[in-house]
């Protein structure tokens, strides 16, 4: 504490402090000079400007990016919407103006006052939205009487228009007004209250690309609020356009086939993972969300027992039923539990422990090898394979096929599905795994749950020779002036853990399921197209309790129908997964839907019964 006193004395400090004071005084001289300049030199001019303060800000909404299908058909468009607003400071006298506006435009006066009341606290020089989306008639009436309506403005802003609504309602989704919670979220930091943002589907998942950047203008207005001069403009930047991999014709076909049913149909391109169609039924009207939905409509939507707002292709989980046998067969072959020649005798049931497990075919399939088991969906064969494999080995294969976890498609809120293991059950229920439960699991019942999209990806991988792709919906993203900024590339998630020879056996079994006279989907075979597939009928015992629940007699106890398929047999161009809730049999309810989608797609969009020979010839040569 003493040595510095020898070096640094108070003189030393004083010198440095006086330099500091000089700098501070110099800075304050600048401040004072500026004050004198503003308040004395420019004072008169600025006083005048403040008296007529006539500079207003107007915001210019950015058009949202458009959404196209794979063939550049517009799915989600923007249309002009005329929004009526008022600048209170310019609307003098306010009562008279509102009264006249109500008369000219035919809008209820109380409604106008209500909007004004809601915007209480807005600075008087800022426009307040009175009514969005007034019709063309009201617009014309207001424009004609503009001189008589001080402070009233109509500005045009883009509004969403879903061309094919309700088609693609789940996949494209809809927009809605931003909520108070969303406004606090960082990703919506450039939004303000009253803005519309994507709430569901692609509109929500790709909000960041679709939303443009708001622009605005600094304008000088006259006494009645009309713009005299534009002082400054910041252009709005339109959002990016999105091209989906969806084939809208195929989509409409799928939706038609699902009409009046509850369920989902997904079609993917097995060679890329691109989603060609994704239908979920029942659908809903997307445009109703844009124009403001009544409480009744909303309540009807959310209380509908068929859950129209749910995207059943990715959010609904069902037991995979017999479609799961594809995986059991592959696992059995790969683990050496069975081979091509292994055959079991099916008497129509299997006795295990003190219970009898039935085959769906009461009188039995007789001698069954893996090909016949797949094509005729013999339960007894797969009971035995399942028992040999055990639940955990089976689960390992199911996971390797992509089940039990989301597929990673570019939509939010995708369900996981469920692939049980012994450990899972112990943890979940506290009860150890019972061997009998393995029997249920082996035929896709029990705890197993999958989504239609997951099953579509499984058959796509079987069809393309074992490559698992990530399903993709967004194909390209382009700027409003057409520059491509994103191009989706197929993303390989992994390979099926199964040798080519074993895979060939499974594929052969699936081919026979459709094209063999005894195959379960024989009735849905396509003339001239080599379709391979697997039916499934999922028991829905769990829903029995709903049966007493009143009028919903649309088969509360009927089984769910599955069909998964791909075509052509070699180098398939399309893989389809169809789930019809309470459709009863996969072969009768789901297979015809899938078959018609495949026929439609492979024939290049031809209506039924009009098959061009060229396409037929191209695909038939590897047939029987």
């Amino acid at each position: 504490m003493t040595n510095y006193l020898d070096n640094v004395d108070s003189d030393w400090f004083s010198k440095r402090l006086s330099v500091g004071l000089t700098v501070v005084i110099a800075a304050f001289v600048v401040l004072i000079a500026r004050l004198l300049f503003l308040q004395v030199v420019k004072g008169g001019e600025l006083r005048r400007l403040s008296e007529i303060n006539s500079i207003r800000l107007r915001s210019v909404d950015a058009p949202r990016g458009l959404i196209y299908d794979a063939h550049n058909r517009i799915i989600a468009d923007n249309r002009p919407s005329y929004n009526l607003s008022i600048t209170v400071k310019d609307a003098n006298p306010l009562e008279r103006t509102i009264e006249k506006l109500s008369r000219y435009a035919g809008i209820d006066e109380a409604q106008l006052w209500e909007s004004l009341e809601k915007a209480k606290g807005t600075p008087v020089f800022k426009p307040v939205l009175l009514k969005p989306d007034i019709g063309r008639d009201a617009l014309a009436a207001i424009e004609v009487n503009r001189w008589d309506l001080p402070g009233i403005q109509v500005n045009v802003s883009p509004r969403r228009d879903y061309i094919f609504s309700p088609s693609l309602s789940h996949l494209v989704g809809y927009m809605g007004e931003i909520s108070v919670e969303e406004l606090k979220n960082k990703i919506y930091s450039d939004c303000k209250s009253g803005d519309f943002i994507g709430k569901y589907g692609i509109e929500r998942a790709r909000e960041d690309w679709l939303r443009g950047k708001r622009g605005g203008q600094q304008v000088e207005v006259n006494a009645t609020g009309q713009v005299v001069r534009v002082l400054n403009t910041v252009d709005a930047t339109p959002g990016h356009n999105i091209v989906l991999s969806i084939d809208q014709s195929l989509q409409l076909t799928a939706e038609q086939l699902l009409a009046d049913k509850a369920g989902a149909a997904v079609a993917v391109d097995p060679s890329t993972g691109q989603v060609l169609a994704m239908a979920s039924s029942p659908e809903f009207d997307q445009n109703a969300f844009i124009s403001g939905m009544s409480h009744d409509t909303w309540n009807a939507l959310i209380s509908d027992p068929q859950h129209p707002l749910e995207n059943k292709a990715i959010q609904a989980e069902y037991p995979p039923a017999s479609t799961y046998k594809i995986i059991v067969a592959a696992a059995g072959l790969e683990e050496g539990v069975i081979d091509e020649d292994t055959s079991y005798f099916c008497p129509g049931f299997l006795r295990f422990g003190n219970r009898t497990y039935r085959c769906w075919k009461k009188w039995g399939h007789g001698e069954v090898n893996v090909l016949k088991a797949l094509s005729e969906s013999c339960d007894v064969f797969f009971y035995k394979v399942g028992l040999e494999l055990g639940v955990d080995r089976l689960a390992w294969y199911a996971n390797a096929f992509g089940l039990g976890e989301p597929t990673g498609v570019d939509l939010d809120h995708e369900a996981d599905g469920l692939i049980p293991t012994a450990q899972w059950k112990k943890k979940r229920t506290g009860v150890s795994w019972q061997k009998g439960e393995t029997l249920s699991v082996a035929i896709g019942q029990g705890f197993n749950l999958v989504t239609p999209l997951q099953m579509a990806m499984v058959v796509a991988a079987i069809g393309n020779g074992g490559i698992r792709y990530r399903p993709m919906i967004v194909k390209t993203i382009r700027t409003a002036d057409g520059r491509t900024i994103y191009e989706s590339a197929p993303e390989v998630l992994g390979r099926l853990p199964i040798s080519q020879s074993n895979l060939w056996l499974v594929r052969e079994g699936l081919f026979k399921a459709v094209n063999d006279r005894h195959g379960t989907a024989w009735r849905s075979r396509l003339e001239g197209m080599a379709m391979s597939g697997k039916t499934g009928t999922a028991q829905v015992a769990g829903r029995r309790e709903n049966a007493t629940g009143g009028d919903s007699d649309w088969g509360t106890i009927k089984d769910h129908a599955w069909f998964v398929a791909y075509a052509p047999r070699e180098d398939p161009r399309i893989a389809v997964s169809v789930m019809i809730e309470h459709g009863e049999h996969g072969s009768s309810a789901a297979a015809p839907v899938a078959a018609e989608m495949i026929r439609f797609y492979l024939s290049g969009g031809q209506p039924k019964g009009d098959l061009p020979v060229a396409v037929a010839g191209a695909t038939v040569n590897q047939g029987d």
Partner: protein
Amino acid sequence: MFDRRLLQCFDWGLLMFTLSIGAMGLVALYSAVSAGAVEPDLLLFRKQLIWYGVGLVVMAFCFLFDYKQFERFANAIYLASIGSLTAVLLFGKYVGGSRRWLSVGPFSLQPSEMAKIAVIIVLARYFAKLINPDGLTLRDLIIPAFLTALPFALIARQPDLGTAMVIGLIAGVMTLFAKIERRALSWLIATFTLLVPLVWFFLRGYQKQRILTFLNPDRDPLGAGYHIIQSKIAIGSGMLTGKGFLKGTQNALSFLPEQHTDFIFSVLAEEWGLMGSLSVVILFLIIIAWGLSIAGRCRDPFGTILSVGVTAMIAWQVLINIGMVMGLMPVVGVTLPFVSYGGSSIITMMIGIGLLMNVSMRRFKFE
């Protein structure tokens, strides 16, 4: 601990000037909260009165102890401050896209305001030990650089660039005051000149845009640029004698953004004219000069550097805030000491004044 003789040395002048500015600030705040309304919203005004009361108590607390106690507890104060800045990033309230507030009962505090004091104390302690006529070497500067960078980064992360910048500027003044060795100084200048373009090169497009707007608000005519135009109109239209109490039209029509916090000087200048605005500016100049003279009369390096730090904080905020509302500086959220609405700002400034008084009172006392 508290000597009655100290009372004779009590700095009445500093207290008087501070309270005068505070009073003018309250008048301006009353105008700001009555803007355009028939019934003025007096809640904010009453809250500010309470904050002033709390501020006076905290100020008294700050000069009761010998300021050397602050030197002893400098590290603890600094660590507590860093802790609260971390807490605000983790649990802070989101307001307008940034996390700056911590809720304490019914009130919200901005730990970033208090962090200024913590940095001043910890740096004063560090420099007091090392100070010598040859100046500090580069190696001496490593620790203070780190001590400044940590709260700077935490505050910039909120994001609150204005306050972060003020902390950097205070630290800069304190370091320059403590003197940097000539060689070290030229090294620093050279590195900075080289680093700036390099950093620019690594920034993303939108970050560059943000910085450009920050430097030149006219690039953003719908946000900052518009506000500056309106603020200049407000100040200029006050002319010599002002429009009169509660008669400011710019203020009444809500043309001014943040009229009770960052733009309160415009409200005052509009209603009280050059008469009022010049008084405020000169009062600030007096307080700053007073602070420097306290630093000069102190016989202990810690007290001197501490006073310089506190005075630098007041000076920077006055220059930045008034410069900003008059269109001389980019728009950054920096409050006007003793005038702007806000508990954290008031309390921080009162702590600063308390520290100055403390140093002033004990200048004759030797250990």
